């Protein structure tokens, strides 16, 4: 056990690419956690996806042992927290496990929206914020300007900000000194009943579920019988340790310490982030505050391109779920796409990550339907059914419109931070997406706008549009602010007069026509010509709101069939048949898989 006064728990806050991972690597290297040979770049981002995208998905922690200039040896626990709003709750728990944060700001880029959101959260947790201006080695670095920005925009004292270059190893020791001298040590009572916060959990094929904990009071050691106060389950601790970043077993974790435990747990579901761990005997009376069950907010259907892969998809989803309790799935069948799963996610990035892992790690070809949010629908009484409330997350389940009393949709508060030259287009985008402007402020050449927006307009393609109109300079962050009533309708797409369920979506009446027209135009290009002409329509109920016609094919023939050589023609026919096998039949129309995928990704034009 380490003396409380010698412990420092901190996280690193940074906008993406400002150097969080690089700095963490340097700190590990400097304190000797790994030899140079063992250092593979960005030790903390474990998954391929994390490395490639430069985002952290799972909270990670490393314990650094640092002998400071005051001659004392400190235990520094560095938490790398998920860097995306989709994982806001996990972030909040990670922050609750720390007493301070390093605020890393790129000396050339300055403060960005994500920085703001995270820093405010950190301040809410009463953290001591230590500003680090990184990348001072860059020719475009303007540390003084950034220092002023931190003070102006965030409102914290940046006069003692550490100037660093994580890449060239400048200022690393100063960062460590600042951690020791500025961030307060944790508090805790060794003699009080055990109270440890479950910060994160993941599945390890050898150890089973590994749980990251921050001990508040008491101590946790091998052989202890513990209780998860929210989950209501009891477990026997069989391993206690920390990461340096190598996994290292420890006899115990005392108050103020961060580390991991294992307890023969098979599913991450049983180890919910934010839960309080205490002893079965003589345990704490009350749980730690701040526990929340996370709910998926974005849903989509995931189907195998090849129906024969359904079983493989099922297994793969189940396996991913072992490691990520925050997404849900249930079986779904679609006339267009066959058997698949309706999956719920914390947000769009989460959705993309899961989809990408399925494709990559499990080698599956998938079709993902348009993301949809969860609607609350009040149903009127019918002859056979009482008035009741349903939560709808699949347009296919849209009820009989005559029974709908009211539909509520989720709204978010979005904070967008942008160089002011793009402000005009961004305001227009928000306006087009039914946004309500709440606030607009300027700082230097930058604007910060706050909008309330319906989430379904954001899941559509908002983020892509935002990035493209601001050439990637605008940054965006959001929080959910609850449900509001909306004039929402189900828009169906009909191909050759048959509804194509996979393409139906719930939209606001005011944008239905534009969306429908756009969809019909896209499909017109995506569905190959057939031997007859094909109407493509968008409709609300029985009313057609947009229509296009795919002209009939005019020519498809082998002009010459030479010298009795039939083989070639046969090959052509075989190819045709194989191609057809990959399409879905609607009436007499064959729709290629790519058409579904492309039509549903309307944003990427």
């Amino acid at each position, binding site marked *: 056990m380490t003396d409380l006064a010698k412990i420092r728990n901190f996280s690193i806050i940074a906008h993406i690419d400002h150097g969080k991972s690089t700095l963490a690597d340097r700190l590990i290297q400097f304190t000797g956690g790994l030899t140079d040979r063992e250092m593979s770049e960005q030790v903390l981002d474990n998954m391929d996806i994390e490395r490639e995208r430069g985002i952290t998905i799972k909270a990670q922690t490393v314990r650094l042992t640092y002998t400071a200039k005051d001659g004392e040896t400190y235990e520094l626990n560095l938490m790398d927290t998920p860097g995306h709003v989709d994982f806001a709750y996990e972030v909040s728990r990670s922050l609750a496990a720390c007493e301070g944060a390093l605020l890393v700001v790129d000396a050339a880029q300055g403060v960005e929206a994500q920085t703001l959101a995270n820093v405010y959260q950190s301040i809410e947790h009463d953290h001591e914020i230590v500003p680090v201006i990184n990348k001072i080695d860059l020719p475009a670095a303007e540390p003084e300007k950034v220092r002023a920005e931190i003070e102006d925009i965030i409102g914290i004292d940046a006069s003692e900000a550490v100037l660093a270059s994580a890449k060239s190893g400048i200022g690393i020791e100063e960062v460590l000194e600042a951690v020791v001298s500025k961030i307060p040590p944790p508090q805790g009572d060794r003699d009080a009943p055990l109270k440890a916060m479950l910060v994160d959990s993941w599945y390890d094929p050898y150890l089973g579920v590994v749980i990251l904990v921050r001990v508040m009071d008491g101590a946790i050691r091998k052989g202890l019988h513990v209780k998860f106060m929210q989950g209501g389950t009891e477990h026997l601790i069989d391993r206690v340790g920390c990461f340096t970043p190598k996994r290292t077993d420890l006899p115990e974790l005392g108050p103020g310490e961060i580390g991991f435990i294992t307890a023969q747990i098979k599913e991450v579901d049983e180890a919910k982030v934010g839960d309080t761990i205490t002893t079965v005997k003589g345990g704490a009376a009350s749980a730690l505050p701040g526990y929340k069950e996370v709910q998926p907010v974005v849903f989509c259907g995931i189907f195998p391109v090849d129906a024969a892969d359904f079983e493989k998809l099922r297994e793969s989803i189940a396996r991913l779920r072992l490691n990520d309790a925050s997404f849900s799935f249930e079986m779904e069948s679609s006339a267009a796409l066959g058997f698949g799963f309706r999956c719920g996610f914390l947000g769009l990035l989460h959705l993309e990550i899961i989809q990408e892992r399925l494709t990559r790690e499990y080698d599956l070809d998938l079709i993902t339907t348009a993301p949809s949010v969860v609607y609350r629908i009040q149903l009127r009484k019918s002859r056979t059914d009482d008035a009741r409330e349903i939560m709808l997350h699949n347009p296919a389940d849209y009820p009989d419109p005559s029974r709908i009393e009211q539909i509520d949709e989720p709204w978010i508060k979005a904070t967008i931070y942008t160089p002011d030259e793009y402000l005009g287009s961004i305001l227009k985008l928000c306006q087009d997406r039914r946004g309500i402007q709440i606030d607009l402020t300027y700082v230097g050449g930058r604007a910060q706008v706050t909008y309330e927006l319906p989430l379904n307009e954001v899941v559509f393609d908002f983020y892509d549009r935002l990035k493209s109109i601001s050439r990637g300079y605008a940054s965006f962050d959001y929080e959910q602010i609850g449900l509001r009533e909306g004039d929402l309708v189900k828009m169906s797409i009909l191909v050759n007069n048959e509804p194509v369920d996979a393409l139906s979506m719930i939209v606001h009446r005011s944008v239905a026509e534009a969306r429908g027209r756009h969809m019909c135009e896209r499909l017109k290009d995506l569905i190959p010509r057939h*031997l007859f002409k094909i109407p493509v329509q968008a409709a609300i109920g029985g009313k057609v709101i947009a229509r296009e016609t795919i002209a009939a*094919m005019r020519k*498809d023939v*082998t002009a010459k069939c030479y010298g009795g050589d*039939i*083989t070639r023609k046969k090959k052509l026919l075989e190819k045709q048949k*194989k191609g*057809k*096998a990959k399409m879905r039949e609607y009436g*007499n129309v064959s729709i290629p898989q790519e058409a579904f995928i492309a039509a549903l990704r309307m944003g990427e034009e």
Partner: protein
Amino acid sequence: MARALYIHWPFCLKKCPYCDFNSHVRATVEVDRWKAALLADMRHEATLAGGEALGSIFFGGGTPSLMPPDLVDALLGEAERLWGFAPGVEITLEANPSSVETANFRILKNAGINRVSIGIQSLDNEALGFLGRLHNVKEALTALETAQSIFERVGFDLIYARPGQSLDQWRAELLRALSFGTGHLSLYQLTIEDGTRFATDVRQGKFVPLDDDEAADMFALTSELTSAVGLLPYEISNHAWKGEESRHNLTYWRYQDYCGIGPGAHGRRGQIATVRHRKPENWLEAIASYGHGISEERALPTSEQASEALLMGLRLREGIDLDMLSQRFAISAGKLVDAARLDFYTQQGLMWQNGHRIGVTGAGMPLLDALLGELVPAELVSA
């Protein structure tokens, strides 16, 4: 039933940029060796598929008009000795319209050739340049005139739907072609085949093929104009006066047996499909080693034969007799074509049905490949 014999001569003076036939350019050809080899290949075929007299012989290529007339004479002599000729045997030779070749026409006629098909390809000098042809319009017309004065049955080929060609330009060219009064015309739309120089050109953006809509309009115009002068479109690209159809080619399309000798030639002997070595040198070597040029000989399952019969038969205006095919392959008519789809496309005006005969209408012809994909059940199409 009479037999058909195809003889392939694989050499050309120059490879045309659109051509994916089995044609090769060689500085010299050892005529004696080729003569011996072709005769050997022919004898091999005759021992396996003898009996009936020949109803048609077709010299194709490559450029068979480059064959020394003596060689043609020797081959025909041997063929007659091996099989005998049926009365009115049709003996066709494909010719390119260069002056050298034209000069041989009379000798070829004496050797027994009674029908020529001339590769004119275009009546426009610029287009001939684009198509990489070695002749100009004047030479082509001289060749045609000479042929018409020597042979009773003369036909020629044109390639249309060329990049940049307009409907009016094609109308003018076709009308001129019709004015020569030949009893047979093969009018092929230019298609870009894999592995040709044109395929590379298109990939590199050197030219853009004519778009399908315009090509379809030209197709319709072609049938209209040829029919108007009595040259009926009896096959997708072939037009003839009644009785002037290529009997030899009809053998393929009606899916009857044919022997094919020479490099790359295909043949059907009962349910057996034969293919000969494509590369001239390999074929020669095979002859030297085995006495025949066959590279592949395979008995086709009836399902595959049925699919071939459909692929070929539906190219013809006369269509196919479903009952007959059903009996021939012991496959029920319902399994030969998808009946529901057949009805659907009949309603759409792309197919016709008449008793047990079915066929593709004039409107359906330019869509044949797509129609086949719809009508021929997957079970018949070996994967």
